[in-house]
């Protein structure tokens, strides 16, 4: 079979090349026969052309946005409905709304000076729950920082969230990390790291370890469209492809990197547009459609594990909240713009409409759940706030597996000092030995 001569480059020529690879034993013959016809440069798999032509980035429409439901929550093509049980969908809905409620309480508590920092997940609940629900709970998650919903789906309790944000004695992180930097070995969620993008090559490394152990699991790596401008993102995407790692790159394209809108972040076709260039399977989904996210992640997981290759998902969504409590987004975007997404295209209302149409949910249930949810959050919040801080000596632990003598010496000095001047320190707020 002779290679197809293409008038234009771009996506179609990639597809044509894939076809060529798939013809198996014939391809060797074809290569010999056509060696004059095809460039033989190492690393090249393209055609000759005698036309002086630059590739125009605007030659083709962007990669389409896969969706299951329309904005009203109506399934468009029934074959795409994942047919999840009422119980499962209700759990998804409750998790999305509970995340929303928790965000409101913790955001306010930062505003009142009770905790130092917080980041809300408003508007992106669909990307969290849709993707987390499609994963195996044992798949390892590397988050960026705005993926609390995935942890909540896996069973991180309200108490655990609150304890972390307060850094109290029951915080699994022993009060060492700033708020929202959750981590749970039990739930296979790697502790959040602040520098942007470092989780991406690390996810590839972990996926490489999974590939070697052949444990039937994959690694899920969340990142934002802003992070994809970091050098780490390039390294990670490229390596995952060259090392054939079972990793899903899940981009939450929420329109803003703090104040930088996505139109200033890149000129190409978003993040998904880069996938084929790295040799990765790629899809763009409506991140506010929890079923679209679920379907895409489920399929991506299958491919990642069965074919040992990375998959890129770009979930289009909108960050309704401020970037963090250190940000005031009214300085760079209009209230009307935010209102549009909050009122017209919200993942929670879309799922609620779906449930209403199925007869799985009603006003009475909504009211009851809202009250119940708020009560649960407030109770956990009050409990966490009252708890003591961890023993202050914990500041010296976990620097190394075994405490070296110079750190032990520091601890001893502090012990003596604190003992001597006990009345100057709020020791009653800290757990004793």
């Amino acid at each position, binding site marked *: 079979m002779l290679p197809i001569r293409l008038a234009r480059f771009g996506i179609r020529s990639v597809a044509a090349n894939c076809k060529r690879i798939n013809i198996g034993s014939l391809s060797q013959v074809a290569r010999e026969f056509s060696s004059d016809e095809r460039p033989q440069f190492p690393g090249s798999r393209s055609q000759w052309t005698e036309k002086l032509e630059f590739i125009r980035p605007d030659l083709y429409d962007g990669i389409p946005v896969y969706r299951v439901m329309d904005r009203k929550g109506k399934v468009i093509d029934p074959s795409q409905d994942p047919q999840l049980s009422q119980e499962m969908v209700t759990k998804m809905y409750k998790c999305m709304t509970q995340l929303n409620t928790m965000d409101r309480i913790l955001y306010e508590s930062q505003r009142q000076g009770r905790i130092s920092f917080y980041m809300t997940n408003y508007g992106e609940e669909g990307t969290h729950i849709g993707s987390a629900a499609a994963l195996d709970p044992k798949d390892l998650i590397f988050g960026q920082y705005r993926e609390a919903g995935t942890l909540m789906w896996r069973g991180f309790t309200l108490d655990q969230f609150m304890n972390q944000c307060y850094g109290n004695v029951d915080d699994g992180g022993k009060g060492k990390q700033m708020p929202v930097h959750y981590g749970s070995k039990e739930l296979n969620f790697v502790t959040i790291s602040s520098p942007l993008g470092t989780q991406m090559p*690390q996810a590839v490394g972990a996926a*490489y370890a999974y590939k070697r152990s052949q444990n039937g699991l994959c690694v899920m790596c969340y990142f934002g469209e802003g992070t994809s401008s970091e050098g780490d993102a390039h390294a990670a995407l490229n390596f995952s492809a060259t090392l054939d790692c079972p990793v899903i790159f899940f981009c939450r394209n929420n329109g803003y990197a703090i104040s930088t809108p996505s139109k200033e972040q890149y000129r190409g076709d978003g993040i998904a547009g880069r996938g084929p260039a790295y040799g990765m399977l790629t899809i763009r989904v409506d991140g506010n459609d929890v079923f679209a996210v679920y379907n895409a992640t489920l399929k991506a997981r299958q491919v990642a594990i069965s074919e040992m290759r990375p998959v890129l998902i770009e979930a289009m969504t909108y960050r309704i909240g401020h970037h963090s409590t250190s940000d005031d987004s009214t300085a760079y975007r209009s209230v009307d713009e935010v209102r549009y997404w909050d009122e017209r295209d919200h993942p929670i209302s879309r799922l609620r409409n779906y449930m209403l149409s199925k007869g799985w949910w009603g006003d009475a249930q909504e009211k009851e759940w809202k009250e119940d949810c708020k009560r649960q959050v407030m109770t956990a919040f009050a409990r966490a706030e009252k708890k003591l801080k961890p023993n202050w000596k914990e500041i010296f632990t976990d620097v190394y597996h075994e405490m070296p003598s110079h750190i032990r010496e520091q601890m001893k000095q502090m012990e003596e000092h604190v003992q001597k001047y006990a009345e100057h320190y709020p020791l009653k707020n800290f757990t004793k030995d």
Partner: protein
Amino acid sequence: MMLKNAFKYVGLRGISTSRPASAQLTVRDALNSAIDEEMERDERVFILGEEVAQYDGAYKISRGLWKKYGDKRVIDTPITEMGFAGIATGAAMGGLRPICEFMTWNFSMQAIDHVINSAAKTFYMSAGLVNVPIVFRGPNGAAAGVAAQHSQCFGAWYSHCPGLKVVAPYSAEDAKGLLKAAIRDPDPVVCLENEIMYGTAFDVSDEVLSKDFIVPIGKAKIERVGKHITLVAFSRAVATCLDAAKELSAIGIEAEVVNLRSLRPLDFDTVMESVKKTNHLVSVEHGWPQSGVGAEIVSRMVEGPGFYYLDAPPVRVTGADIPMPYAKTLEDNSLPQGKDVVRVVKKILNVQ
């Protein structure tokens, strides 16, 4: 990064100008056998970096490993230090024990975020939940004729940071024992080798050649016993001190040479014990003076009881406080040499 090809050339030149192999083990072979033995011992250990596989490493430290262990455990990476340092860090989080080779530590500046902010701090930030058993290694310090961007000691940089362990082998014995200890260590370890020393052969005992040989991290070694003055150094500067000690011995001054071996944790007890005996202290390093390892040694000596054991102010002998020049004469004179140490010692001891 830039000048990598030039560096390979320098690496090869390093081999051709090595001392005659009158002894049993070169630093290069010591590092190579340390990695080989640990890969054999623990399936989780693997090495990654630029050129480490088929090419056997830019400095041939991974010689033969790709043939023996294959693509799965000896991985050539695309050229991005931040990328493969991040992947190695993630692999360690995922349960493997990576050895991440930087072609030289100079290039690790691209990757330092992963080394410091991820590898060194994750165990603490996760309150002991996630550990990162990883070794970052490669040649450190000045090579020869490769100027400012390739001739720098990172001892002070990395040893500044809690969460990391930092070792700096001088001899073949150090190289083998410290690297093996680093690979087995549950914490992230930075291994600062010296390119000029790679081809140097050392006499080693059968014990060093054994597969169980380990040099504990955080313990210094007295390389030469003396009673008049203590010279403290690490890596190639130990050779500078030994040269000086030999010369001083001819005029009746017996210098004790302390090879730090580890920069973090730093074995200050050994330094202190030595100074109690000699009452004089000189630190020698090839890095820069400000906030250097010597600054740390001298501070620890004078800020505590050690001060009272000193008969004269301690002195630092360091590299010149300038980016490394290219011209050979200038380069040679920008680094401490035996004669500089001799001069300082004579001055401190008031010997003409």
